[in-house]
């Protein structure tokens, strides 16, 4: 397979405004934040973000106006810092359009896409107002006639996953929880891997069972040390509590927030 190593700037440049992007990780953990920061630096707009449970990554994209639409099930900083301030604001002011999901309907939509079918039946969901609000449909099982909720295929234009190790072909090894990272890579039209370090393929060949995403699904692989910062990366680093605390404080005021983003995100030293 060809060498797919690329630099972050070029890879992000290749993502058009208006694209739908599925992000890896979950809440405060292993989201591709270096990639997200570069989206902000390049002032992308009209993006759709797809994720089950997000925090800083989606809050920042909402706060900087990069995303116009979100298909998510949870955005918050858990009990560590509570509500997602800019995500909240963006929806309350109508700047961000939300298609609300349960985590499982995001998974179901991605599964439909990964399996090349137009929809996926999903268990549960009965009685939830989310079904009507998000235009899911209740259909009949063709064999028993029993009702079941159907979710349309969710096909991201781009999936971005941050992992600990990948080789030049894009084979990506994930230590610890994989979350939906393999699924979004299967469901998306393009897959971009960012990683703590590029390793030789022979390392992955010693135990291919640990490769979460096969290289033949991957378009580009970017070496981005601390690429999940300020969120955590299993076996590598914890989330940056002080930075996130400062972010939440700054987010309470528009001017302070703008200055914070300018200093910590737009400044090219952010990923250093």
């Amino acid at each position, binding site marked *: 397979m060809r060498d797919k190593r690329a630099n972050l700037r070029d890879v992000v440049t290749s993502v058009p405004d208006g694209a739908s992007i599925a992000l890896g990780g*979950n*809440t*405060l*953990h292993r989201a591709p934040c270096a990639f997200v920061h570069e989206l902000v630096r390049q002032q992308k707009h009209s993006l759709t973000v797809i994720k*089950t*449970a997000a925090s800083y990554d989606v809050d920042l994209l909402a706060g900087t106006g990069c995303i116009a639409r979100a298909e*998510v*099930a*949870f*955005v*918050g900083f*858990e*009990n*560590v810092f509570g*509500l*997602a301030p800019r*995500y*909240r604001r963006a*929806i*309350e002011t*109508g700047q961000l359009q*939300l298609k*609300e*999901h*349960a*985590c*499982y*309907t995001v*998974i179901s939509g991605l*599964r439909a896409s990964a399996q090349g079918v137009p929809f996926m039946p*999903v*268990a*549960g*969901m*009965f*009685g*939830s*107002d*989310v*079904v009507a*609000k998000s235009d899911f449909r209740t259909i009949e099982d063709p064999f028993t006639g029993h009702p079941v909720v159907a979710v349309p295929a969710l096909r991201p234009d781009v999936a971005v996953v941050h992992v600990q190790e990948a080789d030049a072909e894009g084979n990506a090894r994930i230590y*610890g*929880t*994989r*979350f*939906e990272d*393999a*699924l979004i890579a299967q469901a998306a039209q393009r897959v971009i891997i960012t990683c703590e370090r590029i390793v030789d393929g022979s390392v992955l060949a010693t135990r291919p069972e640990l490769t979460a995403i096969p290289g033949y699904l991957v378009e580009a692989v970017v070496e981005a040390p601390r690429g999940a910062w300020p969120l*955590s990366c*299993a*076996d590598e680093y914890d*989330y940056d509590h002080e930075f996130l605390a400062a972010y939440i404080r700054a987010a309470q005021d528009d001017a302070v927030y703008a200055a914070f983003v300018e200093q910590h995100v737009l400044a090219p030293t952010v990923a250093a």
Partner: protein
Amino acid sequence: MTVRPALPSAEQQADMMAVVLARRLRDGERVFHGVASPLPMVACLVAQRLHAPNLVYLNITGSANPVPETLPASTVDPRLLRETRSLVTLAELFDLSARGELDTVFLSGVQIDAGGRINMSAIGPYDHPKVRLPGGAGSAALMPTARRTLLWRTKHDPRTFVERVEFVTAVGNVDRVVTPLCVFKRVDGRLRVEEIYPYTTPEAVRAATGFAVDADETTPVAPPVSDTERAALDAVDPHHVRLIEFA
């Protein structure tokens, strides 16, 4: 008449809730919690030390029966992987519930109503909300499919416990609702007070609840935290991570 006691401390509330949740867990059952669930995390670990050594403790990291060295503030934290012998994806966890093999799921709601419905979506008109909430995460899929749902909420006031939620994020097999003041049990589709805590009164519970409840002098009082329960709490959560839900 009873004099309403001073509001219990956050420590008292957290300890009582963790213990009451742990008491509701059964040995051998499969129990799951998702994001933002410190009290359920503590309750599972406490139950395993006391009456439920064979409880299968599952969480959103995909681990099973982890033995965390220190408890994380985020309940998706890699610290919850320590000593697990298996690791599954989120999809597999939801599948487990979807096919009826998850015994108990812990969920919460910013608003909880008299029918056990939860609102984690929005306060005010859904399309132009006064407050956009985080969203229900797994709840809409889990509440109808898990064999039972244990709801918990660390705030008990009339704006939290309402007659009818403004938006139904999820509804399903609610068994109990654990608050800082009492335990509700869902009977015939409606929440009824099963027991109140030693540090409160029926009047206080009624005054704090936005729907009509039947708490009175005959309402059972939960046993206080026992010495063995206290010891388990101290062993599992010596740094009182559980308090973060009261911040």
